[in-house]
């Protein structure tokens, strides 16, 4: 590629001959105002702000669409050019609202920024304000075209970048407008990619409030890709979904593994916060991301192993207490970083809540065993049946660092009369006993107190152990229960009765035997600083018949001060960087945060590993690229099917055949369902590819902060 010499504002510039005058100027820290120009779009030339003076040429030239030529002499701050720019800004503000403060784009508007830079001349031109019409037809985007200055970037982005062409220009009552290219969005073929929003310089086309988080602390990528942001481990969801769509399942599995060493287990039991954030919630329901992950992970061929990092031995020793998801994750990465790792586990086998809490009908143990074996295979030592009494003491036995992840293996017992009678169980004990192969005895009528996923596990397990009537009761109203909707539905299919909005009054008993649970209806439930607040509904007290009662109202770590670490309300107290009160001892997972989720434990353990590695003299970097490079084609084209494809549900065993055993019930996706579900993805990550909007202050900052 040839180079040409030119002079811009007295500065000699050597520029690539393919560049435009505008590009050459900006590359060299000379700012020329421009609005209809966008880095990723074809030049347009309509805004007239980038006009400059070229020596020997009458009038002004359009710098965004004029190529550099040898010997050109350009003046950007030419008097006439500046007058033209001012006039253009003047004219734009005759239709654009002049009051900025009330605009949702206030502070982020390129038009406002440019008008500040260019200034206006206060000419007595006529106000021609446009009718304040808001079009909310698009479920994800808001069109307030009375702010539109017709730069055409949205129209160009939709056709040039996306190949969709859902927007077009049209004259409406004589006035040029940007309109939807068809009678409806569907007809126009909108793919909800948000490219139009991304390039709009004003507040005309915006994301609807609530689609993305408005958190200035989030990176652009995390803001624009809500599923990845919603995942505690920030797994690159759109990337692995795209691999599934392409049929490259091992690559999808590898993508998940980049952030979590339990891809398949997560595929079975993840709480999928990603799905709660999925943009498609606003359309017709989120993608079934967890099931896609499960399918991909089941197709893993281990090809990622050749790309996984394994550092040389450092000679440092780290002890991990507790072989749950946090402990195993920490052990895995610490070993990869070259440290010698020993995991101490109190129970007979590794897995923590994944083995002793989550029932096997939800997570088949062979899946878990396989993933733990993978961790052991790189040299992580797991010592089971080892009850560590004191973390501090363990550290003194020659370990350079200790990571505590003891989880929450003790259930909470509510202060009700009769709470210690035989036949009253705690969630953690009840579920653990089943998984140790020594299930507790259950009667015919079981009442479970609680409305979370663990309560459902208890209720479903009781049913599978032979209970005839199982009732769950909780404070929360149906729509406020913490259990996932899907699990509540399945529980109801299995005949479990859910009694919502009740407060527990007393455990009834006769001759030392439980006979029932008395509850009273409530309303106006709120969680204040001192716990739940509500109003009792008069005359709504009833007693549920019961011979077995299970508390499923939270869990806490099974440790005391003797463990040698400072505790806070029974949990391990940590400071920044997952540090405990003792130097060199780190902690994460449920034991710190209270009962959360497997993915949260994994994410926190990864963070803690980085801190421990730095403490041991490493760089703390555990990022790795296990999946192949992916080309995410931004030109998605018109796909009329996209909006018609509705969420695929997995095959599930019928209630009658599942509620009497602990066999897996959710059979997940097959290949065709997975492909079909993956093609529903709106590919939010494509929007990140679009160059972010820049303001004149950004260019001046690059120039060296001068004005």
């Amino acid at each position: 590629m040839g180079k040409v010499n030119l002079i811009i504002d007295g500065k000699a510039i050597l520029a690539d001959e393919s560049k435009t005058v505008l590009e050459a100027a900006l590359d060299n820290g000379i700012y020329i105002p421009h609005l209809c120009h966008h880095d990723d779009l074809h030049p347009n030339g309509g805004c007239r702000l980038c006009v400059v003076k070229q020596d020997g040429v009458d009038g002004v030239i359009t710098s965004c669409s004029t190529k550099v030529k040898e010997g050109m002499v350009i003046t950007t701050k030419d008097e006439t050019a500046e007058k033209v720019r001012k006039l253009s800004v003047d004219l734009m503000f005759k239709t654009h609202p002049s009051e900025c403060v009330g605009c949702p784009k206030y502070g982020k508007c390129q038009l406002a920024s440019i008008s500040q830079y260019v200034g206006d001349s206060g000419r007595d031109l006529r106000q021609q304000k446009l009718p304040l019409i808001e079009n909310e037809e698009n479920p994800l985007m808001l069109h307030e075209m009375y702010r539109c200055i017709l730069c055409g970037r949205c129209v160009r982005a939709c056709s040039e970048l996306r190949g969709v062409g859902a927007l077009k220009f049209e004259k409406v009552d004589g006035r040029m407008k940007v309109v939807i290219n068809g009678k409806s969005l569907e007809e126009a073929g909108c793919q909800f990619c948000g490219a139009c929003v991304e390039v709009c310089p004003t507040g005309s086309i915006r994301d609807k409030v609530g689609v993305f988080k408005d958190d200035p602390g989030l990176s652009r990528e995390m803001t624009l890709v809500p599923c990845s942001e919603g995942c505690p481990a920030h797994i690159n969801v759109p990337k692995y979904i795209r691999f599934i769509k392409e049929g490259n399942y091992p690559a999808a599995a590898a993508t998940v593994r980049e952030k979590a060493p339990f891809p398949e287990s997560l595929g079975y039991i993840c709480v999928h916060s990603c799905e709660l954030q999925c943009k498609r919630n606003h359309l017709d329901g989120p993608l079934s991301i967890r099931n896609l992950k499960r399918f991909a992970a089941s197709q893993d061929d281990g090809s990622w192993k050749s790309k996984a990092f394994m550092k040389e031995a450092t000679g440092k020793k780290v002890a991990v207490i507790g072989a749950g998801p946090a402990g195993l994750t920490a052990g895995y990465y610490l070993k990869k970083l070259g440290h010698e790792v020993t995991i101490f586990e109190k129970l007979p086998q590794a897995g923590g809540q994944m083995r002793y809490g989550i029932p096997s009908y939800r997570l088949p143990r062979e899946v878990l065993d396989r993933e733990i074996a993978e961790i052991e295979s790189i040299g992580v030592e797991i010592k089971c049946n080892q009850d560590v009494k004191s973390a501090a003491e363990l550290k003194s036995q020659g370990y350079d660092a200790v990571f505590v992840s003891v989880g929450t293996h003790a259930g909470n017992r509510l202060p009700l009369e009769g709470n210690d009678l035989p036949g009253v169980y705690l969630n953690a004990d009840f579920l653990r006993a089943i998984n140790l192969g020594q299930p507790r005895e259950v009667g015919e009528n079981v009442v479970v107190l609680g409305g979370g996923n663990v309560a459902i596990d208890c209720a479903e397990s009781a049913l599978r152990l032979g209970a005839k009537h199982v009732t769950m009761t909780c404070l929360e109203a149906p729509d406020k229960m913490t259990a996932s909707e899907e699990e509540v539905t399945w529980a109801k299919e299995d005949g479990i009765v859910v009694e919502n909005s009740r407060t527990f009054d007393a455990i009834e008993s006769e001759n030392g035997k439980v006979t029932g649970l008395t509850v009273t209806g409530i309303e106006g439930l709120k969680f204040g600083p001192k716990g739940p607040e509500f109003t009792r509904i008069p005359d709504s007290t009833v007693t549920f018949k019961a011979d077995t009662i299970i508390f499923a109202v939270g869990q806490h770590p099974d440790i005391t001060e003797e463990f040698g670490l400072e505790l806070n309300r029974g949990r391990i107290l940590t400071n920044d960087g997952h540090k405990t009160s003792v130097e060199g001892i780190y902690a994460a997972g449920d034991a710190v945060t209270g009962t959360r989720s497997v993915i949260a434990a994994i994410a926190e353990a990864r963070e803690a590993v980085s801190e421990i590695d730095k403490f041991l003299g490493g760089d703390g970097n555990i990022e790795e690229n296990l999946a192949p490079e992916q080309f995410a084609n931004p030109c998605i084209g018109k796909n009329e099917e996209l909006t018609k494809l509705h969420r695929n549900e997995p095959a599930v065993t019928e209630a009658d055949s599942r509620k009497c055993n602990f066999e897996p019930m959710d059979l997940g996706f097959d290949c065709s369902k997975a492909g079909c579900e993956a093609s529903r993805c709106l590919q939010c990550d494509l929007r990140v590819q679009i160059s972010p909007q820049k303001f004149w202050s950004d260019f001046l900052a690059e120039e060296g902060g001068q004005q």
Partner: protein
Amino acid sequence: MENLLVVSCVSDDVKAPLSMYILRNYKADVIAGVEKYAKEFGAEILYLLPEQEEVDGLNGEIRYTKMSSPTLNNPYAVAQVLSGNLPRPMIQDDYVAIYDEKAVSVITPEAAYGMTKGFDEKFVAINSGEKTEIKKTTVGQSVGEIASVDSAKAVLLGGLKGRFVTGPEASKIKIDETENFSSITIYNEEDCIVDACVQLMNAAYENSCGKCVLCREGTSQFKQIVTEMTTGKAKMSDVDLIKEVSELITIGAYCPFGQHMTRPLTTAMELFAEEFEEHIKKKSCKCGKCYKQAELYYIDPDECIGCGECIDACPEDAIEGKDGFIHIIDQDLCEQCGKCLAACEEGCIKTATKLPKLPKKKTKCGKW
């Protein structure tokens, strides 16, 4: 890449409907010219015709369009229209407009005719009153030889991009091959120049492709300001405003149409400064065209019952009044949209060219 030569018959200036005339009357010459040009570039030929115009025996594919725009001699604008979009020109170094994977170039029937017969001949549309006559002239002839312009009040040479000159001056001007002479529009003593400018600016607004801010908003502003000169809302300072803004638009607009669409107005204002001043200052029109049309709306104070219906109906908030008091229309805000007329069940909203005596302060209904 393959080439496509589009014969655009939809880029005529509104004052010079030459394309279809030449294509129909000199078909063989046009076809020969197109053929010659297409051969040179190895291009396929496509004729772009206005809808409902049928021409037999053309040497290429025929496509019809509802669009008509001065930008449709620009290859990119033509490619846009062929793809079903609005015309928007693209003027850029080394830029190749592409349609159907072919590089587009454009020729008009007039240019094609010139390819065959040379460029000494020039077609000119002569507009007088409602009539349009198209004449074949020779470059070098004077305007006076082909049209009787001596007694004209004004002559517009060229259409929406043209300039006004006086009749005697026009008579001496020699035809050259530029577009400026594609039409000669004659205005007589009974024609109001300000009104003529209103028509021209309306047409310019309609013809503006809307791509560039200066042309799109400029035509919109000029249309409104000149119209206000015929309804009494404009100020004398608007004359200087138009001059100053026009100069910048001429320098700064994107395409030749945008750059020159101000010319009819600025030349008219220079040539007929008094007539403009009379419109603005005295709010009168000697030709009786302008202020006659501008019927003013008022509320008959004898009949108004003070119900407020008209206040609610007025999109400009131009009606003042409280319950039970006579309502009054603020003439400075009134846009004469007529919505109040429809809203008033009492039929007390009336129109007149001159307002009767109306209450100046708050007056109870029935006390006038």
